[in-house]
């Protein structure tokens, strides 16, 4: 917080860094030399990167295509006709994954935030709640997702309780929400703890209650601080929604599996895999963008 007083470089300084601002004296010989050197260096590293990437790609291509098993692998994993046939049903399955992702993602944010707030409550009165939240996080962060899926997906309906749904879609979403909320709660907690105590002191000194302070002052800053980490978890969630297939929900993975069982050709898996990648790419780019913006905000003016 002590650094808050530091002023951002003004427009004059920014202009001198980018060069060519009106009213700026013409660059000196020294500066021109430095710019030429930097441009040379930058061209050279781009060249090196391009060539090495190309060489690696060619070598990888040759090694794979010249391997003794390649023709067989090509027909079982990369068959265009099988892929085309399987595509529509896989795409329909992916729609289910997308629903799990969106509904589950929303639930994860709410539940995770709630648990994180519970974990940061102070005072002996809240000890049971705090303990409960800590126990929850320990349990579901430690339990492999696949086991949670089995326990929730097969265990809950086996109780035969009134009102417990037995749709693999609902149960699968529930299991994923349970696990991911534990992770996301920890991310939120880190965010809450990253807000300097002086912010809380300032809010309380204005007469805001603990609850108001948390809601109006701490959480907005906490969420902003951890948005890149949250988006990363969202990308992870995007592929883990494919795991609901183990409960029998006909999602993209399951649809591919059914096709594989019929044709003994693995191409549908590759198709499903690529579709998941395509789904993940936009959010990965958004995550990168948000992280870069956060970095710029924190260290404007630095060259490192």
């Amino acid at each position, binding site marked *: 917080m002590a650094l808050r*007083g530091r002023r951002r470089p003004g427009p004059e300084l920014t202009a001198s860094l980018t060069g060519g601002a009106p009213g700026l004296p013409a660059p000196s010989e020294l500066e021109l030399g430095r710019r030429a050197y930097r441009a040379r260096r930058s061209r050279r590293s781009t060249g090196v990167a391009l060539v090495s990437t190309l060489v690696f790609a060619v070598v990888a291509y040759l090694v794979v295509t010249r391997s003794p098993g390649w023709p067989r692998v090509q027909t079982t994993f990369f068959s265009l006709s099988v892929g085309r046939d399987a595509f529509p049903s896989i795409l329909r399955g992916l729609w289910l994954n997308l629903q799990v992702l969106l509904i589950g993602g929303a639930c994860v944010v709410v539940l995770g935030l709630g648990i994180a707030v519970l974990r940061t409550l102070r005072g002996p009165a809240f000890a049971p709640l705090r303990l409960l939240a800590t126990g929850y996080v320990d349990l579901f962060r430690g339990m492999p997702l696949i086991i949670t899926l089995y326990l929730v997906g097969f265990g809950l309906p086996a109780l035969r309780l009134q009102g417990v749904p037995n749709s693999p879609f609902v149960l699968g979403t529930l299991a994923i929400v349970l696990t991911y909320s534990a992770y996301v709660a920890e991310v939120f907690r880190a965010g809450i703890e990253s807000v300097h105590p002086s912010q809380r002191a300032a809010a309380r000194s204005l007469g805001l209650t603990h609850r108001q302070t948390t809601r109006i002052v701490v959480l907005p800053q906490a969420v902003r601080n951890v948005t890149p980490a949250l988006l990363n978890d969202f990308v992870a969630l995007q592929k883990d929604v494919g795991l609901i297939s183990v409960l029998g929900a006909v999602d993209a993975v399951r649809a591919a599996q059914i096709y594989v069982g019929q044709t003994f050709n693995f191409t549908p898996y590759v198709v499903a895999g690529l579709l998941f990648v395509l789904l993940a790419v936009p959010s990965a780019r958004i995550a990168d963008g948000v992280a870069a913006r956060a970095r710029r905000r924190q260290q404007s003016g630095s060259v490192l």
Partner: protein
Amino acid sequence: MSAVLDVRGVVKAFGDNVVLRGVDLSVDEHQVVALIGGSGSGKSTLLRCASLLETVDDGQVLLDGEDITDPRVDADAVRRRLGVVFQAYNLFPHLSVLDNVVLAPTRVHGRSRADARDEALTLLGRIGLADKAGEYPDRLSGGQQQRVAIVRALAVHPRVLLLDEITSALDPELVGEVLRVVREVAAQGMTIVMATHEMGFAKQVADTVCFLDAGVVLESGPPEQVLGDPVEPRTRQFLSRIIDAGRL
């Protein structure tokens, strides 16, 4: 005249470190009290105890005669009657300048947004920052941020304004603009307790100067006496060091 703020024998320790060893301090209405003393002498801790940001380990703090250190007292209700300004400004970075100022009046004091906004703009205008109302704090200089922080504290019409070394984080050239605001607020009759290293300012504005040393008020009185002709050898030693550093 009864004291607005009355500190009686306050003790505060952080683990083994006893910061306040029985501090007495009485502040009357419209009075400006400057707390001076070296780092670690307990100035900030005293202010934090008075604003209930710390719990005292012994003694009492009375606000308008009410014992606010009583655990049965609603601490939030007490803090509503106080204004605190911190060394590091502590503006809320995710809120605009205006929202920083109207937050407590609307959320704590239940005033209408339009009403709070009008007053906030008037106050911001008085410190020359009305045009910055829509800006976010990190677009402001340190001096501007601190002036906004003062306005934020004033917007709740506090009984006492507690200023905790509010110029210590500022460039020398920005100190003046902040002190000018404090001087104006004092002139309007606000009761102020300020921890400060600005001896010249304390001399001009304060009615009483208290020298804290090792957790007690060693000496207090009118500024000419405490700063000009101190009785205690420790006070003299402290002031001579400040004079050597060119700060008085």
